[in-house]
Structures are given as C-alpha cells and as structure tokens.
C-alpha cells in the first residue's frame, strides 16, 4: 500500500513497468493455459458429457440419462468393491511410505552432507524407467524359480514363499513405485525446519522426542502433507501394480474404468466412473492445496 502513496509523484519508468508486469504475468501463463484448456479441461468436459449418455451407446450430447450413475451406486453392482480396494491400498501405501521415507528425508537434510545430491539423484532415477520394467523386475525376483526362490534353493533351503499374484504384493508394488513422490515433498518440508531452532531447543534441555513432536513435525507438515496427498492420489489411480504384480487377483478402480472403455465397450459407464473418481480426487486436492502456500514450499523469498 505504501507504494501506491508514493505513486502520486509523477510516474517513473519503474512504476509503469510494474503496472505492465501484471499483464506480462498473464501473458506468460497463456500458452500453458491454452494447452491445459484443450488437453485437460476439454477432455474432462467430454467425459462428463459421455457420462450422461445412454449406456452402451455413443450418443454423446444427444441423450441425457442418469442410468450410468444409478448403476454405479446400485448396491448389487460390485464396483464399490474396486473403489474400496483402491482407497484401502492408497491409505496403506501412504502410511507405509511415511514411515519408510521419513528417516531418508531427514538424512537428506541433516546427515548425508555432500552425498545428499547424489543420493537424491539415485532416488529420482527410477522415475525415468518405465514402471512396467521395474515391476516386471519384481516378478522375475518373486516368481517360482526366480531370483529369490532360486537363491534360497541353491542355499539348500525349501525355497521362497509364494507371494506373487496376491493383494499383499500389489501393496508392496505400490509402495515401491510411489516412494519418490513421498520422499521429495517430505525432504522439502523438512528443509523448512530452521536448524537453529532445533539447536536452541536442545540447548534449553528439550528431549529428542519433544523436539521431534513440537518443532520438527509441525514445521515440516506442509511438505509431509503434500507428499501424503500426492501418494494417496496417485495410488488411487494406480493400475500397473495390480495388473503386473497382482496378476489381476483384484480389480482396482482405474482398471474397472479401463475395462468399461475397452472390453465391454461401455463408454458412458466408464465415463461415469471416471467422473466419480475425478470429483473425489479434485475435491481432495483442491481442499488440501487451498491450505498450503506453494510460494513458501518452493522457496520464494
């Protein structure tokens, strides 16, 4: 506000520029906005339109019915089971990854020193290997006569447990795939904790548990929450783990959507399912993001 008071004076070049910057920002955002408008919002509208079309038809925009939604919420339909599996898996994935990633995120901030950069790269790299390839590697590891089974037999032991194609190994695969998505937001979050504050608390005689509960955890919470949200949302949409490792022993919700679109050629039903999932995800994401300050998270000074 103080700037405006000063602006009463004849306009300097800088003030003109500052006024222009408003529109410069909007202009810079334009290409992204156009891309997402055509590539993200428009398909969402198409899906929404399809979800109100007659089941098993392609009469989009020409028919209007709520049958698709009615059949999803019909208790005799087992689709709620897929949804429950997906939500359950996602919750467990978040819980497991929070425990796995916290010590590593702490280490990246406070223990690894000059190795931190290299260790981060090692954790990022698997993102650039197709998840099919990585999950198939686990199949080769767990399969009968595979790496685990073969090694145990070679050592004269009875052989590995038969874990492949079970819900448990699906959960394992999800925790494996989404580790970086928990780890990096958490690391950013822990970086927000000022070291001086922790040192001060320690000098004043605070115990380690106390410091963790009262200082580290609350200050790192934005990052931890973003990590949890990201993992949860991605895990809700996961299909590859249940297909490749789980051997389709259970059907997750995204898989149901795919089945509706491909094998059963029921695009309206698939669209209705996709709408339900999207609304769930959008509501969750937007609520969480409205409570977070992205500028602070990403390091604006």
């Amino acid at each position, binding site marked *: 506000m103080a700037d405006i008071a000063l602006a009463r004076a004849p306009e300097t070049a800088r003030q003109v520029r500052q006024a222009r910057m408003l529109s410069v*920002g909007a202009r810079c955002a334009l290409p992204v906005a156009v*891309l997402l408008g055509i590539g993200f919002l428009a398909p969402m509208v198409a899906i929404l339109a399809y979800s109100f079309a007659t089941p098993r038809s392609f009469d989009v925009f020409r028919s209007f019915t709520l049958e698709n939604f009615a059949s999803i919420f019909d208790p005799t339909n087992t689709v709620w089971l897929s949804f429950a599996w997906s939500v359950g898996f996602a919750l467990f994935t978040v819980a497991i990854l929070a425990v796995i990633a916290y010590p590593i995120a702490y280490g990246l901030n406070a223990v690894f020193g000059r190795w931190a950069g290299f260790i981060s790269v090692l954790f990022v790299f698997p993102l650039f290997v197709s998840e099919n390839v990585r999950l198939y590697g686990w199949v080769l590891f767990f399969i009968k006569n595979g790496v685990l089974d073969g090694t145990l037999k070679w050592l004269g032991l009875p052989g590995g447990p038969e874990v492949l194609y079970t819900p448990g190994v699906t959960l394992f695969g999800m925790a494996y795939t989404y580790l970086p998505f928990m780890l990096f937001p958490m690391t950013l979050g822990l970086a927000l904790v000022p070291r001086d504050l922790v040192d001060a608390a320690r000098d004043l005689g605070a115990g380690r548990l106390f410091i963790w509960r009262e200082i580290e955890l609350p200050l790192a919470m934005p990052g931890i929450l973003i990590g949890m949200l990201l993992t949860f949302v991605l895990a*809700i949409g996961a299909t590859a783990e249940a297909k490749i490792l789980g051997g389709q022993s259970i059907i997750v919700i995204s898989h149901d959507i795919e089945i509706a679109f491909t094998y059963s050629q029921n695009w309206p039903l698939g669209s209705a399912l996709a709408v339900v999932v999207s609304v769930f995800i959008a509501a969750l994401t937007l609520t969480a993001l409205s409570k977070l300050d992205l500028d602070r998270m990403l390091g604006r000074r």
Partner: protein
Amino acid sequence: MATSPALARKRTNALIWVWTVFVLVAVYLPILCGALASFNKSRYFGFPIKVYATEWWQKTLDSIEIGMLVRNSIAIALLVTVISVVIATFGALAFARYDWKGRRLYQKLIILPIFFPQPVLGLALLLGFNAVGIQTSWLTAVFAHLVWIVPVVTLVIAIQVYGFDASLEEAAYDLGCTRTQVFREVTLPLLWPGIWSGMLFAFLLSWSNFPLSLYTAGADSTIPKWLYAKMVAGYTPMVPALGTMATLGAATLLLGGGLVMLLLRRRQPA
C-alpha cells in the same frame, strides 16, 4: 543413556545411513533382476542362470520392429522436450516471477494434471480425440504427454525462478535495454540451469511413459507399450533386454545432462 547425546546422535545417523542404503538396494534390485534375465541363454527365466549369453541383446538390436519402436519413442520424447520447455519457461515465469491477478488460481490449476491418474487422463484424451474426429497416432501421443509433462517442467523451472534476483532485470531496464534484450541477455542465462533440468525431465518422463501412450498413440507403439504387450503375452528375454537398454539409455542421458549442468553452474557466478 543420557550421559552422551553426541554418541546417541552418531548412532542414529549410522542407522539412517543403513536404512537409506537398504532402501536404495531394494529400489535397484528389480532393475538388476531384469538385466540378469536378459543375459539368460534359454528362453524361459530360471535362477541361478545356467548359461549366460548375449544373443537376446543381439536379437533385440537386429529386430526391425524394435527399431521402429525406438524411433517412435525418441521422436515423441524429442518433440515433447522442445515444445514443453518453451511453454513451461513462460509458464514458470508466470508461476513464480510475476505478481498478477490470476496467479494463485493458476498455481493450483497447473498442479491438477500432475495429481490426476494417468490411465484415466489417457482415456479422457482418447475420448476427446474421438469426439473431434482426430485419428490417434504418435502425434496425438505427443499432445497427451504434453498435458502431463508441461506442468511438471513448469514446477522444475519455477524452482529456479524463485531463486533468481529480479533486480538484475530491473538494472538492465534502467540501463536502457528493450524487453527482448533483457529476456535474451539476462533472464534466459540466469534460468539456464532450471531450463536444462526441465529438458531432462521432459525427455526422460516422456521416454518412460506408459499409461498415456497406451491410449493415445493409436496403432503406433512405443518402448513401454511394446514391453507391456509382451509381458502380458509372449515373454522372451528380449523383454528384459529392451527394458535394460531403455534404462541404460536413460542413465546415460541423465549422466551426460548432469555433467552439462555442473558446467553451467560453474560458469555462473553463485
């Protein structure tokens, strides 16, 4: 116990190291298993491997079909890299540099596609292409990749933008530079490290993407798409061989890119 907090901290740090190394081993274990399987002479995998051979690597390299997939994957990834880096550089400036009216909303909307399940996004795009009457091919896959990769690259570059000193731009203006000159001589050089890592992300994420390519590439196949088809039906050791080659390709690119980045950082005074 309470006598020596320094010792206790040392022990905790050691445990953290052990845990991190353990998790890293688990992260790379399946990739190693794939590499092992690709050197197996017999068609079906069994461990310990009885006879090692490089014949499946040779067969993969000689295959005309695989040559086409690789060309498709490279073409898609290159196009995605070039387009996304241009759009995302401006997107990142809007995200982090300028204060403008719609900024808060823009920041949130740009994150949505990243959070959205990719198989569903792929299907939605397929539906959209279908509604408009566009035949799907590798070009539509490029567009689909962009929808997901541009937001990621925007965030990557935005982190660099946050760290940059806007008064340098101001100084250039005060010295009489035009806007194009400022952009070319000041903004762009300062943002280079971020743009470079954005390019690496764009290429590598497109290179490894499966769910979007599955639904939007039509009859054209990419490496991850072909691998999945063969995993489901028709395993040969060419599957892990091609998977390992793709991994090695990505690793080489990341290593080379990292070296260039080090050079860029060194040239730039902190």
